[in-house]
């Protein structure tokens, strides 16, 4: 085993608005039947990385529930396995994770006790497929200290990303974290390859200096000192950490080429199996250009939308250009347009929700009466 994996899944982001009130971004449902973290986890297992640590902190209950068993991603092994690290109070540390580097520092024992020569660091909010071995080979060929996976931004505004510039040898010469004005359209995908001993050394040094962020305090600070290279990907990559990009990423799966890439092409993306019955389309249901996950029962009209697992749509409903998260009950005669409906919600009959300018996040805390 040449590498172990670390998935940074602790972050919060005000740009997710109310959607991150109850879950970490890495636990956001994606594409009908997945969670965001499934993509990085599946990439790890498909790259034969058998030992993976997930660092969680913010609102981790829903994420921990999703990671309750490692078997879905084939990590239930004697060699390696899936490790979930939340902050703990120890005799010499009473802090939460103060940043990505600190999160790794607080779990440095995991790195020190491993024997894999390399580490792949990924984030839990990216939707992509990537064979990390290819990045690793590139990393070795370039004799790099750190390799940063990067991509051309699909969004015009790159101010929420790490923006970088490479020279003709692909060495990173400029690196700005969340710049006000960006000088380049090439952004970091938040995926790094680094030698394990190098990582331990850099993390320990930063901790001594009270620096806690992996990007600002290590990558940017060391970029002229260490050989930091960019590995550019041109396959589908999306970061879901704003409501708009989350919405857009889900809607992307209505395109046949995106579905084919993620759903059918090998290697696949794995997720926790929920043992739900197949979707049921009753008489009178009208569905156009939509994704419908298992356990759904549809009576009304669904147009250009993504319905996650276990959703009931009543008679005469119109669901249009919307995303309905898991376990939602939608009463009769309801109109939902340009919305994201939060999971486990109950929308009463005759409701009307429409995002007038932009996406509306619908959270109704109605009680549901179950017989």
């Amino acid at each position: 085993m040449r590498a172990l994996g670390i998935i940074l899944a602790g972050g919060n982001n005000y740009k997710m608005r109310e959607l991150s009130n109850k879950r970490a971004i890495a636990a956001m449902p994606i594409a009908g039947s997945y969670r965001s973290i499934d993509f990085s986890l599946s990439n790890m297992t498909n790259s034969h990385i058998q030992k993976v640590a997930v660092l969680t902190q913010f609102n981790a209950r829903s994420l921990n529930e999703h990671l309750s068993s490692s078997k879905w991603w084939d990590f239930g092994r004697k060699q390696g396995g899936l490790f979930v690290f939340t902050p703990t109070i120890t005799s010499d540390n009473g802090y939460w994770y103060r940043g990505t580097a600190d999160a790794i520092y607080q779990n440095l024992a995991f790195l020190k006790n491993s024997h894999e020569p390399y580490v792949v660091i990924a984030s839990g909010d990216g939707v992509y497929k990537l064979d990390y071995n290819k990045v690793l080979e590139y990393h070795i060929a370039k004799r790099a200290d750190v390799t940063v996976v990067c991509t051309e931004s699909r969004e015009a505004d790159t101010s929420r990303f790490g923006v970088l510039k490479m020279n003709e040898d692909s060495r990173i010469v400029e690196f700005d974290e969340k710049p006000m004005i960006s000088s380049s359209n090439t952004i970091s995908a938040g995926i790094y390859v680094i030698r394990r001993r190098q990582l331990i050394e850099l993390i320990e040094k930063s901790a001594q200096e009270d620096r806690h962020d992996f990007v600002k305090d290590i990558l940017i600070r060391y970029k002229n000192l260490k050989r930091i290279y960019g590995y550019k990907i041109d396959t589908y990559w999306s970061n879901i950490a704003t409501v708009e990009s989350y919405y857009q990423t889900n809607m992307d799966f209505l395109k046949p080429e995106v579905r084919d890439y993620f759903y059918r092409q090998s290697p696949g993306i794995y997720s926790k199996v929920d043992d739900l019955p197949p979707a049921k389309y009753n008489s009178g249901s009208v569905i156009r250009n939509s994704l419908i996950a298992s356990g759904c029962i549809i009576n009304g009209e669904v147009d250009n939308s993504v319905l996650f697992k276990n959703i009931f749509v009543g008679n005469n409903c119109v669901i249009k250009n919307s995303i309905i998260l898991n376990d939602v009950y939608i009463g009769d005669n309801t109109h939902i347009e340009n919305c994201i409906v939060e999971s486990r919600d109950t929308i009463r009959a005759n409701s009307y929700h429409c995002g007038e300018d932009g996406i509306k996040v619908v959270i109704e805390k109605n009680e549901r009466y179950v017989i």
Partner: protein
Amino acid sequence: MIKKEMIAMLLAGGQGSRLGVLTEKVAKPAVAFGGKYRIIDFPLSNCINSGIDTVGVLTQYQPLRLNTHIGIGIPWDLDRNVGGVSVLPPYEKSQNTDWYTGTANAIYQNMNYMEQYNPDYVLILSGDHIYKMDYEVMLDYHKANKADVTIAVMPVPIEEASRFGVMITDDAGRITEFEEKPEHPRSNLASMGIYIFSWPALKEALTALKDQSNCDFGMHVLPYCREQGKRLFAYEFNGYWKDVGTLGSYWEANMELIDVIPEFNLYEEFWKIYTRGDIVPPDYIAEDAVVDKCIIGEGSEIYGEVYNSVIGANVRIDKGTVVRDSIIMQNVYIGSDSTIDKAIIAESVSVGDHVCMGCGEEAPNVLKPKVYGFGIVTIGENSVIPSNVKIGKNTAIKGETVLEDYPDGELASGGVIVKEKEGERS
């Protein structure tokens, strides 16, 4: 000492020959059902939902699919440190090596398996019924009656009772007589093929009957127990229970799932049915597609029109195709502008463009009229149907067919095409 109060023995070795080409390569319990399940999922899920964590599955006929499906029992939580699911095929012995020659003989040959768990009770199940049942309630009934054998029975219309083993009981529910497929039934309580035996009674009966040829529960063990004066009780079950032994009843049971509130409801929160599902993505329903009164398994892509049907996982139905009253199992591809009427299409079949299936007048099947009836078209798994052919009713096709196999581009009603692949073992 390992001790389990009740263990289950699930008989899954039968061929189910009345399902025709559907069971040519697959044991009946492994046949797909209801969009994502296989028939054996129902008794296995009943076991774990009833708190039975030790299940022996007796296999014999074409066990490959069944073995792959069951594995170590993870989907049903039957991967246990002690107990769990064990697949029990016939095996070679130093003397009297034999296939399983009958239901009771199969259980007898696995006496050692049962003995290692020191059970008080043994539940005998068959792997070819669709139902939800709490075996624990049945066990309570068995205990309350101090019974030696309890037989689950179901009231059926008296005119249908002659198809079943019928139990005649006294007021207390004790069985006084039984008749196997009687011409003039004296009771409407049909045996469901589900038995709870107190272990000493089962062991004694199986040992006494060990030389009985084709030893069968209904034919030999139950009569023996009654003759020995054992306490036999009938446990009346009034829920949904369906034997899917024929193409007609298999088709019907699937179609019953698509009612608005089906009698057999898979959508209830409690009493979940578990299955091995490796297909995760949601369904995609295209812009011009129609899905009306149907259930569709995960990952299917529908571009055509589907009415009144049960569609499995990872199926693709192309534009212009109309599917009606049909059962389509997983990984099937159907081309464009085809018409599929009342067909059962098994796994991984590929159907071309402009195919008309289930057209024309009914005619009895030339080969097996009793199997291929009900007006149904049956396509065996991995078959290929070329473009531009017409297929009539009561037909069966198996194998990679080409246009030349269809005289004038047509398989008339009642016709059969079976093509063996070269080098393929039947």
